[in-house]
């Protein structure tokens, strides 16, 4: 039910994200989604890529500190108000949302929301019960294929 996100430590200095992206380019990594959370002097970069295992191995070799975080990826219609329904469901289920970001798919009219919640199982159940499509890792890899 969950998908794998790579969280990477980035130093807060000019050019640090560009350097990171050049590394991805060099290794031909296709990045589907990305978000940066920044503290005063460092940032945490979160990415969704096509081949999580290969990418994290490569990043470690390149000297990056990173880890895999399990998140929920939810398919929604690409229209105003679609996210509200999802957030209401989580609220009703009393699941705390830590952060979220989104990406569009190559599939017409669909968008994907990454949710980092306190309790993946509970959130996943609530979403499924409401008929929301929660993407699993296998499906995720297919999303890159189409």
């Amino acid at each position, binding site marked *: 039910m969950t998908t794998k996100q790579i969280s990477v430590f980035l130093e807060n200095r000019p050019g640090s994200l560009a350097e990171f992206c050049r590394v991805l380019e060099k290794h031909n990594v296709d990045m589907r989604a990305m978000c940066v959370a920044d*503290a005063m002097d460092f940032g945490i970069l979160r990415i969704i890529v096509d081949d999580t295992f290969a990418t994290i191995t490569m990043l470690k070799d390149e000297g990056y500190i990173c880890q895999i975080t399990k998140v929920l990826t939810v398919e929604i219609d690409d229209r105003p108000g679609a996210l509200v329904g999802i957030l209401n469901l989580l609220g009703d289920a009393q699941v705390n949302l830590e952060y979220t970001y989104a990406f569009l798919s190559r599939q017409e009219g669909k968008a994907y929301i990454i949710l980092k919640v306190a309790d993946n199982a509970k959130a996943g159940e609530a979403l499924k019960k409401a008929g929301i499509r929660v993407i699993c890792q296998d499906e995720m890899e297919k999303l890159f294929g189409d």
Partner: protein
Amino acid sequence: MTRYFQPEQETASREQLTAWQNEGLVKTVRRVWDNVPYYRKKMEEKGLTPGDIRSIDDLHKLPFLTKDDLREAYPYGLLAEPLANCVRIHSTSGTTGRRVVAFYTQHDLDLWADCCARAIVAAGGTKEDVVQVCYGYGLFTGGSGLHDGAHRMGALTLPMSSGNTDRQIQFMTDLGSTILCCTPSYAAYLTESIYERGLRDQIKLKAGIFGAEAWTQEMRRDIEEKLGIKAYDIYGLTEISGPGVAFECEAQGGMHINEDHFIAEVIDPATGEVLGDGQKGELVFTAIDKEAFPLIRYRTKDICILNHEKCSCGRTHVRMTKPLGRSDDMLIVKGVNVFPSQIETVLMNRGYAANYQIIVDRENHSDRIEVRVEMTPEMFSDELSAVTEREKALVSDLKAMLGIYAKVKLVMPKSIERSEGKAVRVIDKRNLYQG
């Protein structure tokens, strides 16, 4: 007008000074031999007895004391007087929780007050003056030293201690302070604050006695110009007594060491060989008139040059340059002694790697210290709050260890410069030591 607080001592002939030093050294070595087993053992290891020390010509035979000795002998191991005769302690920050504690009898405090009174008088102080002491009071010797010195020479003393700039300036203007005693960086900060408040014309200062940290000639001229004062340097260390071990006169050409109380030597830090005038080396002190804590050949780790030439002020005591550097890795930041090993200890305790770098800089005359720490997989988390909480805990531990705020910056692994495989631990951008 040249003024002295104790003209007989301060302008004594070299013969007289030597006679006092001979007598003081012989007496002190005997007392230490009798009362301090720790040092007696060190003498015995060199095959020395008090009889071998007949004058200052024999001084070079005596073993050195270092900060390590002070730590090893902590707290009472170097005490030469029954504790009942001691009336005060002062202490410096130490590494890994072991501080250096110095003891004082009333005689020792009087001697120290005399030294500081000499410094204030040399800066033009009289009993008509209002001396504002904004060195920290407490275990630190800065506050007490200048405070007692100001009392001793009869000035009105404002025991402000450090910080609270608004209150400092209010007292300075309301009570017409004429002599300011603080660290040079605080003097610069006060100067700025006075200008910001538009109070320059209400300041009656004529002199400043600034010590406890390194400062440049440029900084001196800047403060002098802006406040319309003459700024004097003062030197000292808790182990020997505190500020006033040496002080500047109106010639501003080096600090006179109070030679009737302290014998100064400059040695080659590598070999221990005694060097002559004009040669750069580590400053070593022997206290010859102290009761409780009379250190013999104490290595200060401060690098300086001695000058016995006659001074235009008429004082005969040898002059030392400002410290030109350190023979160990100690940093002085905001007047506080900081050892890289203290920072390392905190990092290790918090589970960080020992890959760190300390960057010291000075902005607007105020020191800033930043500790760069290489991130490790163990310390990393996807949760921003978890990482920042850890960082905050580190900052708070550093503050507890060092006594000052140090900024922490988490950096990429292996990003800290290494030379010959070894990380460059300290980058001091202040460029304070001028040759």
